[in-house]
């Protein structure tokens, strides 16, 4: 039997001015299970809480109702009071007499009638409340970071610096991602490689970081605290333990192919490091183009290798490890504009390039040694046109979103052209200039002063006339068509989620948004978490971002991971769903609606109605994953799955009480 104590708070005059608290307390004594009631000026105050504790002892109370402000304010306060008074904190219920009664009504008589009803509902629920206890789950103190661009590196370093073990997985032969490809970073114009390559080295040398380049995550099982992850190490064909990174093999390799790292603007050997400062600074063999691996000819690299590190028999390797947390840092790719932009020539004009190709070209360690040259004839361009929002903010044919970084890097490119070729003419076709960021707008203004001509409008057509490109567009501020004769056109193409990121999300166990970006658990309050507990987001995989935002988010994700890994056990929220195997028929409808994949069907040893031993299927809730939304409960017709703290009978009881 429940012995319920009801405590009506005056909240000074906040409640008492509109609700007759004594009358409510008196009425409460008639409710089922209520053995004690009282009203008091401030229940949440120290004396108020002592008053409750004393009543628990004196009246032998085993359930408490406090009628005061919103539970969003003081539910936790009073739960602690119960715990201090020796009661399970979940034997508590709250009636909201302030925000939802006294403050919204003026007629004292009617407000009092309503207050009595609200207390009646709370008491009815309290009558059905049960003791709830948290359970614990172990935490494996090791984090997995997927993707080693600037986001992944930063997250890995921050977690490792806090003293936790990190495994950093990168699918390319080098870590670093896109940032080392860039020349300078806006708005400070410091050298991108100069600030990113030291980070790469730091990652490689950190005692708490295990680096797995040229590897991919292939399977993820388990849940927060203990994810079991299978990783595939691709065949490198070079034993990195023996290799000294001398680079002799690269110089002797007779086959050259376009270098992905230079976006086709330069060439590389088939045994290669993507770029000079690559980490690990040791080569791999490209199995698609290496003559030895394709035709079993050549074999020169093995012959010249002074340490015998080349191994053509190398094979991929699978291995498994367990992690407490996962950070997704898979970054972005650029929109394949050649597929849809017929008006820009579908990629058939060599002098129409992307911003990232421009970065490689303007980069001193890039394929042109930092000299701006037209890909078609190697001439220095004297007239350069930049087009922004190619694929972004274009819902009709590409993506509806803004890619956020393009306004600034285009301003930077314009500045760089004017810096390197002082007599050049620079035109920027734009829709808006979005320069919201510290020192961003100033940078844009400076670019205007440098002499870049900003034309507000879209480009409708690019075509070749002789060696020149004719760029036709609109100046929408003047309402006139404009035509520019250009030597080079640079497109600010949209960022899109990196290739394979959707499949990876499925592997890890959450869903991306409609554009393929990783969906955060809450857009405002949980921006670096996914709906899957223990999986966090860093950088552009969550949405287009520039470097400062990426690094900040990576730090935030790392802080979340550190918070998680700082505990050896996780206390679970007891207000989660429970499945009653005696009633569950194993239909699995609840499994599909759970946003956290917390429910699975398991086999249960049982006896059938004839006493025969059988195994039957029932739903089982993982309390580490369940967040307590209760969506599953409604799918369950027999109520076999129910939500602790908001059970079917508790809510029905609240409803019934109102008309009792």
């Amino acid at each position, binding site marked *: 039997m429940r012995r319920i104590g009801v405590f009506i708070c005056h909240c000074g005059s906040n409640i008492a001015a509109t609700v007759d608290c004594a009358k409510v307390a008196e009425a409460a004594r008639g409710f089922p299970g209520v053995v004690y009631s009282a009203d008091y000026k401030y229940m949440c105050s120290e004396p108020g809480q002592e008053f409750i504790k004393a009543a628990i002892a004196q009246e032998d109370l085993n359930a408490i109702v406090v009628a005061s402000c919103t539970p*969003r304010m003081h539910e936790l306060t009073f739960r602690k009071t119960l715990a201090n008074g020796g009661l399970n904190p979940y034997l508590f219920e709250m009636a*909201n007499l302030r925000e939802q009664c006294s403050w*919204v009504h003026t007629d004292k008589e*009617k407000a009092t009638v309503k207050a009595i009803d609200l207390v009646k509902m709370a008491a009815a629920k309290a009558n059905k409340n049960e003791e709830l206890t948290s359970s614990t789950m172990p935490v494996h103190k090791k984090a997995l970071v997927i993707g080693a661009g600037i986001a992944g590196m930063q997250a890995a370093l921050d977690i490792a610096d806090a003293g936790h073990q990190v495994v950093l997985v990168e699918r390319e032969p080098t870590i670093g991602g896109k940032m080392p490809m860039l020349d300078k970073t806006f708005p400070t114009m410091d050298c991108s490689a100069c600030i990113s390559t030291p980070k790469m080295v730091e990652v490689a040398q950190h005692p708490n970081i295990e680096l797995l380049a040229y590897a991919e995550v292939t399977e993820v099982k388990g849940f927060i605290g203990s994810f079991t992850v299978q990783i595939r190490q691709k065949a490198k064909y070079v034993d990195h333990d023996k290799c000294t990174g001398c680079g002799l093999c690269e110089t002797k390799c007779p086959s050259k192919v376009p270098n992905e790292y230079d976006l086709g603007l330069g060439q590389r050997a088939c045994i290669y490091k993507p770029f000079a400062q690559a980490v690990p600074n040791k080569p791999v063999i490209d199995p698609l183009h290496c003559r030895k691996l394709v035709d079993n000819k050549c074999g020169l690299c093995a012959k010249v290798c002074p340490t015998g590190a080349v191994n053509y028999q190398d094979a991929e390797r699978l291995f498994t490890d367990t992690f407490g947390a996962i950070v997704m840092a898979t970054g972005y790719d650029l929109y394949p504009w050649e597929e849809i932009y017929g008006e820009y020539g579908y990629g058939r004009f060599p002098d129409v390039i992307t911003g990232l190709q421009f970065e490689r070209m303007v980069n001193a360690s890039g394929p042109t040694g930092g000299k701006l040259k037209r890909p078609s004839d190697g001439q220095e361009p004297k007239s350069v046109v930049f087009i922004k929002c190619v694929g972004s903010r274009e819902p009709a044919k590409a993506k509806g979103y803004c890619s956020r970084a393009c306004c600034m890097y285009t301003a930077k490119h314009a500045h760089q052209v004017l810096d390197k070729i002082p007599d050049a003419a620079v035109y920027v076709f734009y829709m808006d200039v979005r320069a919201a960021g510290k020192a961003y707008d100033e940078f844009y203004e400076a670019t205007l002063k440098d002499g870049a001509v900003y034309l507000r409008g879209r480009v409708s057509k690019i075509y070749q006339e002789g060696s020149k490109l004719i760029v036709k567009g609109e100046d929408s501020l003047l309402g006139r068509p404009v035509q520019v004769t250009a030597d080079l056109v640079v497109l600010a193409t949209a960022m899109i989620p990196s290739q394979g990121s959707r499949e990876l999300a499925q592997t890890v166990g959450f869903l991306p948004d409609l554009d393929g970006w990783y969906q955060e658990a809450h857009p405002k309050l949980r921006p670096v978490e996914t*709906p899957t507990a223990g999986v966090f987001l860093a950088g552009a995989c969550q949405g287009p971002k520039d470097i400062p935002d990426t690094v900040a988010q990576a730090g935030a994700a790392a802080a979340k991971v550190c918070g998680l890994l700082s505990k050896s056990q996780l206390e679970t929220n007891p207000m989660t769903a429970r499945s009653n195997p005696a009633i569950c028929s194993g239909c699995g409808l609840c499994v599909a609606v759970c946003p956290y994949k917390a429910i699975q069907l398991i086999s249960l040893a049982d006896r059938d109605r004839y006493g025969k031993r059988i195994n039957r299927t029932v739903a089982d809730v993982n309390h580490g994953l369940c967040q307590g939304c*209760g969506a599953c409960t409604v799918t369950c017709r027999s109520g076999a799955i129910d939500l602790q703290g908001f059970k079917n009978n508790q809510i029905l009881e*609240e409803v019934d009480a109102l008309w009792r």
Partner: protein
Amino acid sequence: MALMTEANWEPKVLAFCCNWCSYSGADLVGLNRMKYPENVRIVRVPCSARVNPQFIIRAFQRGADGVLVAGCHPGDCHYSTGNYYTRRRFLVMKRLLEFIGIESQRFQARWISGAEAVKFRDTVTKLCEDIKALGPQRKLRDQK
């Protein structure tokens, strides 16, 4: 308390509000000291997807004159996708209730965010007015 008679009948409206949006929207009405009729009683649930349509049937059976289910706007669910299920369930349930003769005004579902105090106030005010115009709900009622 005076016995409720036809003459002084006041409707009772039950509102199921999700903890994260609509319940805090209702709190915000109070914080702003805006007013609405005394007829509304709120049941707090973690998510609108926790609201079993059977609770609605039960409320009408016991004597509710109107029922409101309120949750976060689609896309803003604290649990990501809960309210999408809510939407499907109550699109269907609302039509079923109308089919057995419960007037459409008596059951409503609404998306009310934690910031939409005005929307909460206006929604329940309108609901109470509509129900006062309709009179007491007698269908599905327990015979007493």
